[in-house]
């Protein structure tokens, strides 16, 4: 499973993409967020932390198979 990072989350992670090996792969948006916050405590200080699955906002209950395009969406600030 690959996860894309943008904006401040890219800076925190130090990369625009990370891979989870199969055994560590989160099975839902909620568990993905939990794992990220454990690995990168800075994430918990953000105003918000959203996840996109196949380029659509996905709430915590969405399940992940591992073949989706997954992206971490920190607070947006366009315009």
């Amino acid at each position: 499973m690959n996860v894309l990072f943008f904006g401040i989350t890219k800076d925190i992670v130090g990369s625009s993409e990370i891979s989870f090996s199969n055994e560590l792969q989160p099975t839902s948006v909620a568990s993905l967020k939990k794992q990220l916050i454990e690995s990168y405590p800075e994430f918990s200080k953000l105003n918000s932390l959203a996840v996109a699955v196949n380029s659509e906002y996905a709430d915590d209950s969405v399940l992940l198979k591992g073949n989706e395009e997954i992206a971490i969406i920190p607070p947006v600030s366009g315009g």
Partner: protein
Amino acid sequence: MKKVVEIVDVIDTAKVYAELSDANSGGICVFVGAVREFTNNEEVIALEFETYEAMALKEMSKIADEALAKWSLNKVLIRHAVGEKGVEEPVVIVGASSAHRDACFEACRFLIDTLKETVPIWKKEKFKNKSVWVSAHP
């Protein structure tokens, strides 16, 4: 083309009227967002915009569709720039055309307000001695 949704490197403000103009439109309302020189009294050198483009285009398209559903509009345009932008450079342009002016004014305001809430675009403010991701922290 009723709906224009784009991410571009440079925004050409001069062409937007022709894009929104229409034989059935008595009114066209356009909003341009640009880089301000000062934020909280601190001098801004530039803004750097980054996007998750595939998703940003989808979200922009949803906003345009929502505006077309809510108001009687002839054309809708949402265009955002990415990359580094200096003071006075346009970073976003949104607009709508309609038979009467109420609809295009309300839609134009909706387009920019909603874009700022949902479209995955991120802005870093570059000051002389630091850079800050806007809105990231409380």
